[in-house]
């Protein structure tokens, strides 16, 4: 535990585990799965920032994940089809003679790549401006972001000819010219995902220890007081929300080559809640907690459903209940209690007076 004290050391350990130990210890199939878990971990880091540090329970990360995923998948589908061709599903289900206009820019790899991150961030900016300026928060915000996911999923499903409908975009063969069926290339995809996770962690760490990070926590714990100090809490929250959206978008984009499919099933209410659970288990306010929690929860889900396919939902349910009720600071708070650092960080350490937040 002492070692983890210095984030740099923790970072180095993480890098060794991800780049050294995991690829050696795991077979192709399990490494593919790990790549998928790491994508979820990237989303979780963003949620940790927005929720753990900023107090915004973003139940809409599926929406941004989907935006990033679809942006990437659209490009890969176009690349698979070859220049000037239409993706296979459009020929099957669409009644179109040519590519719809909003597909065309995605043929350009640079546009598509930047869109995977910028599109979610831009949408989050617009939404955040609307929502935070009007002081929608707490439960309102959580439920509104859920509704956002539901609406987006329904919209995607309704446009089968141009979005693939419920099927989503499947059967993706190549990744920027590399054949995804080749195990070597799949391994490379894993390394890219792992590197992305480390990069996102580094960025979040910077954000957390900066002056902005302090401000964000202050907004979480007393929004009105921060306002009285002359800051605009809306802007402070907006930055965290947009950053979290960007991370979810990035994760969605990497999910596509790692798993080979993106579909509305990854966007709706259910996956969005599942994104959050790992964060809560790992420790929402810490840096590594959300990522480790997300990986642990995703791994547990796979392992349990393989062992007891017809009863694993019970365990999944318990996974939601037990850590949150009995360990509100997540697994990271266990480390925290051992360390006894002076800095108040987790929610546990604010024994809330019996104040019901939503009655405002």
């Amino acid at each position, binding site marked *: 535990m002492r070692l983890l004290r210095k984030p740099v050391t923790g970072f180095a350990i993480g890098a060794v585990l991800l780049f050294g130990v995991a690829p050696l210890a795991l077979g192709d199939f399990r490494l593919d799965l790990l790549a998928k878990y790491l994508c979820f971990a990237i989303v979780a880091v963003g949620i940790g920032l927005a929720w753990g540090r900023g107090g915004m329970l973003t139940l809409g990360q599926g929406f941004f994940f989907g935006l990033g995923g679809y942006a990437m998948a659209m490009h890969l589908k176009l690349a698979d089809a070859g220049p000037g061709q239409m993706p296979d599903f459009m020929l099957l289900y669409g009644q179109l003679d040519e590519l719809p206009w909003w597909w065309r820019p995605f043929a350009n790899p640079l546009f598509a790549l930047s869109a995977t991150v910028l599109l979610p961030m831009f949408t989050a900016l617009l939404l955040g401006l*609307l929502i935070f300026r009007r002081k929608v928060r707490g439960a309102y915000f959580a439920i509104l972001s859920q509704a956002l996911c539901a609406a987006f999923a329904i*919209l995607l499903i309704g446009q089968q000819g141009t979005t693939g409908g419920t099927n989503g975009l499947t059967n993706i063969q190549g990744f920027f010219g590399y054949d995804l069926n080749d195990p070597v290339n799949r391994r490379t995809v894993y390394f890219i995902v792992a590197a992305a996770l480390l990069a996102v962690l580094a960025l979040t760490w910077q954000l957390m220890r900066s002056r902005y990070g302090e401000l964000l926590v202050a907004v979480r714990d007393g929004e009105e007081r921060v306002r009285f100090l002359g800051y605009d809490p809306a802007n402070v929250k907006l930055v965290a929300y947009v950053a979290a959206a960007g991370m979810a978008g990035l994760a969605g984009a990497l999910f596509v080559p790692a798993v080979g499919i993106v579909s509305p099933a990854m966007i709706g209410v259910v996956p969005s809640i599942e994104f959050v659970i790992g964060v809560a288990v790992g420790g929402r306010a810490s840096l590594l907690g959300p990522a480790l929690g997300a990986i642990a929860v995703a791994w547990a889900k796979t392992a349990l459903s393989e062992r007891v396919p017809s009863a694993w939902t019970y365990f999944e349910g318990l996974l939601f209940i037990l850590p949150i009720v009995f360990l509100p600071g997540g697994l990271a708070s266990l480390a925290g209690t051992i360390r006894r650092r002076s800095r108040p960080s987790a929610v546990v350490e604010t024994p809330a007076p019996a104040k019901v*937040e939503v009655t405002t």
Partner: protein
Amino acid sequence: MTLVLSQLFTGISIGAVLLLIALGLSLTFGQMGVINMAHGEFIMAGAYTVYVLQQVITGAGWSLLVALPVAFVVAGAMGVLLEFLLIRRLYARPLDTLLVTWGVSLILQQLARDVFGAPNVQTRAPELLTGSIRITDHLVISSSRVFILVLALTAVAALTIVLKTTPLGRRIRAVVQNRDLAAVSGLATARVDRLTFFIGSGLAGIAGVALTLIGPIGPTMGTNIIVNAFLVVVVGGIGQLQGTVIVAFVLGVLQSMVEYTTTVSVASVIVFIAIVAFLQWRPQGLFTLRTRSLA
């Protein structure tokens, strides 16, 4: 004209269903701040109550009538159990209740699957409620929908009376408006919480009974409706019964009107945009409860 009228009634009947589902939430979520995602599974419990009772009571009409109070108690008891075991530890963390109760809902769904089987089950409706009432040649409204409308309005009336006139209602309102002061004044807030939760969850059971008339009865029936129900409460204004009632009907009519001219998916998206726009105008919902809290 008939078309508009019949669509209007459809909208009102969709609204009535929304209202029935959201009514219990407006208590547990609106008054107590608990985001209970397992509310949908309490509705499911109410629906399965009808199924179980029909194994014993053969008359479809009687079984439905008996099911109403039984489902209220069954779902209410589940609610109290949930409150006692989990939620009372979480009153200071309303957002966490969302995740915990989601876990509970997963468990309850699987439980239903193991007890009643994965496929949907069948209940019989009394013949009276499967037909329709003819107003003019072209304007025909279904009797099950009328029943649900009446049931929803009765439930609202009963709840209003309880909240406004009985000692229990007074206590509930006191705890909602200022928990600390209520405790200082000698109210057993924990008991009041439990009773509130009983009533709120019980209402879900009644909604479940009503849903057997129009929808499927199966393990996942709760998940499809829960988000919409929460939206109704949020837009209506937390802690405000009248807001929930008005918004349920407005959303129902809006949905049905848009859906008639476009498609279901377009209608859902438009309703969502309308809600976001509305919250720009009134971020705390249609009606707001003023408190002195700073947060």
